[in-house]
């Protein structure tokens, strides 16, 4: 991955404590998995940043390589990759997500 793309991704992840790469926007998600994670964060009243990967093919592909994770959505907390939809929901159910958000 070229340095410029990597920096763009890192800048986004660092811009907020909680950052979500998704298809569509929190108010108009374009995929069921992105919808679920967005709704979960909203229900927890989390102030999160997001980026619509459908708007930028470089970021869409780059983020998969960056996280070594083949799918979207991707959730980051404190700059760290947390997981996609299944893991995020599972962590929410177990209470671990709350802990991560409080760190």
């Amino acid at each position, binding site marked *: 991955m070229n340095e410029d793309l990597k920096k763009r991704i890192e800048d986004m992840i660092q811009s907020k404590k909680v950052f979500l790469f998704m298809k569509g926007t929190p108010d108009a998600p374009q995929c069921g*998995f992105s919808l679920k994670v967005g709704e979960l964060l909203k229900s927890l009243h989390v102030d999160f940043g997001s980026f619509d990967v459908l708007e930028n093919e470089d970021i869409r592909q780059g983020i998969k390589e960056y996280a070594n994770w*083949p799918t979207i959505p991707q959730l980051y907390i404190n700059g760290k990759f947390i*997981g996609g939809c299944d893991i995020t929901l599972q962590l929410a159910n177990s209470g671990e997500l709350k802990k991560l958000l409080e760190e």
Partner: protein
Amino acid sequence: MTPQEIQQKIEQELPGSKVEILDPRKDGVHLKAIVTYKEFSGKSLLEQHRMVYNALKEELKQEVHALALETKEEEKIEELRKEQ
């Protein structure tokens, strides 16, 4: 790619795993895989999911759009049964 092909691919890449593919919406697209695998033991959820995704590396690029995942370590009850 059929659910059966996905199942076979994961089982082939993760030898000894047991894979069940569900099609909750009955649309053949939004599939869910439940993977039970001894090697998940001691690994984080993230690592467990990565192992399954790695098994489907090529497929996820093209043919598989949506695959929900649930990973389990080898079921303990079964191990107990074997010991008895």
